[in-house]
């Protein structure tokens, strides 16, 4: 019997071969070390993400999330839903809030769910992996599993938007949340101080407005470098992808020499817990994290 059990909502990007597959890999081995049991919601579907607003409209987006709620409630009763993707978490939480707040929406939603043979009564708690780590386990517990502290490494915790606003992690400020820094310190590394910690990476606009998005990404990476960081760590797949994969283009456009690895907090933890480069999904880096690879091999 595992210490903690949750209904897992990995989200599209975390699937095998998808842009955040390495996130999933690391999360799985992290949960193993922490004795957390994550059971995927059977046949879960996409959350719709923020950007679908125009085509989807209001109700269809909620209905997509409602389907996941219903499936979770049906197959994994009593369990909190845990998302690893910031956007999935936010989308789902918003739908939960809105549905619980408006009986009209709730009725309409159930009418629609009926078409898929589902019905929604109670909406489970929707939580982000980070919340589970901090609130259900706590920093001390997390630290207690560290076998190989990441000593001497300087890492910039890039919180970004969607784990931080509008809901955020309990007790954190929107402007200067500390939880990532604390996680970095928990695994024995040094969290550098820089002022782009919560700057937006451009989100989906990286596709539609690349110039704007990349300008923002540039600010983030630049100030991370200025703070002496050798890598970035995030809790969000889209932040990870945007800050990592566009560095090449930014270098071309601005003549910068960015080459900063961007990791997930879970990858750091796996390594600190003694996991291998593979367990941590380091092979999934577009910009290779050589220091960490060496660290893992030691």
């Amino acid at each position, binding site marked *: 019997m595992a210490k903690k059990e949750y209904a897992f909502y990995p989200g*599209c*990007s975390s*699937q*095998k*071969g*998808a*842009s955040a*597959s*390495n996130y999933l890999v690391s999360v799985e081995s992290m949960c193993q070390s922490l004795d957390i049991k994550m059971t995927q919601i059977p*046949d879960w*579907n*996409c959350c*719709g993400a*923020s*950007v*679908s*607003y*125009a*085509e989807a*409209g*209001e*109700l*269809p987006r*909620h*209905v*997509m999330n409602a*389907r996941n709620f219903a499936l979770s409630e049906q197959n994994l009763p009593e369990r909190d839903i845990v998302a690893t993707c910031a956007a999935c978490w936010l989308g789902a939480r918003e739908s939960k809030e809105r549905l619980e707040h408006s009986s009209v929406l709730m009725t*309409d*939603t159930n*009418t*629609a*769910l*009926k*078409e*898929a043979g*589902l019905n929604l009564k109670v909406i489970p708690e929707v939580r982000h992996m980070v919340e589970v780590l901090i609130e259900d386990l706590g920093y001390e517990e997390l630290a207690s599993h560290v076998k190989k502290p990441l000593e001497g490494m300087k890492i910039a915790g890039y919180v970004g*938007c*969607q784990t931080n*606003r*509008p809901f955020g992690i309990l007790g954190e400020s*929107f402007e200067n949340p500390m939880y990532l820094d604390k996680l970095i310190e928990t695994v024995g590394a040094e969290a550098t101080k820089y002022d782009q910690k919560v700057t*937006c990476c*451009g*989100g*989906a*606009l990286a*596709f*539609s*407005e690349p110039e*704007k998005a990349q300008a*923002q990404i540039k600010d983030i990476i630049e100030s991370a470098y200025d703070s002496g960081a050798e890598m970035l760590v995030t809790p969000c797949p889209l932040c990870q992808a945007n800050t990592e*994969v*566009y560095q*090449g*283009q930014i270098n071309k456009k601005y003549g910068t020499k960015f080459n900063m690895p961007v990791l997930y907090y879970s990858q750091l933890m796996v390594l600190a817990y003694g996991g291998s480069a593979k367990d941590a999904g380091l*092979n*999934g*880096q*577009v*910009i290779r994290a050589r220091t960490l690879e060496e660290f893992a091999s030691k």
Partner: protein
Amino acid sequence: MSDMNQQMTAKYKNNFLKEIEEQAEMGDWVKMCMQCGVCSGSCPTNFHPGWDHPPQEIFMLIRAGKRDEVLNSQSMWMCTSCYNCYVRCPRKIPITHIMHGIAEYAYRIGRAPKNQPTLHLSQTFWNNCTKNGRVNEVQLTQTLYFKDGIADGIKKAMAMQAAALGLVKAGRLNPMEALGGGHKCKDIKGIHAMLAKAKELEAKRKGRTA
């Protein structure tokens, strides 16, 4: 909706405000703006290099009854959903959602700017993720980069090649998905039926013909 497109709006009268209240998600908050401008100063895209009408100005334009300027505006489409405006607003106005709401409404009645890239992204993303219940990232990127025809598409594709290739190497972009592989939900039928119903209900609630 045609009749709404013809709708006359007088200056500093309530009718356009009312229209937004009824039609746009969270539109009934627009009247609560106290004109402090914290949203406009908080918007990240507004500084790189900035767009035509920051949120507060959109609200003021609505109150001033400037229907065309609002509905044709690029502004709402620049929202990255970073929620800075939302959390700083002294009136707790859900600005992010209102921006989405107004954009959605403009698009719905055919007033959105032509070739609005974010609108195109929105359409592509939604169709992509609802087709199989889950996102197919390769097809998503393909449609995006080829949206403006082959030539332009290639240019963009080239620009993205390094990145894309990197992702492929890193095992985070699976070329197989292009050939109809990739992840799917089992109950796709149910999902489609469900969404059709949802669309229908929403249209009815907002007095639109779906």
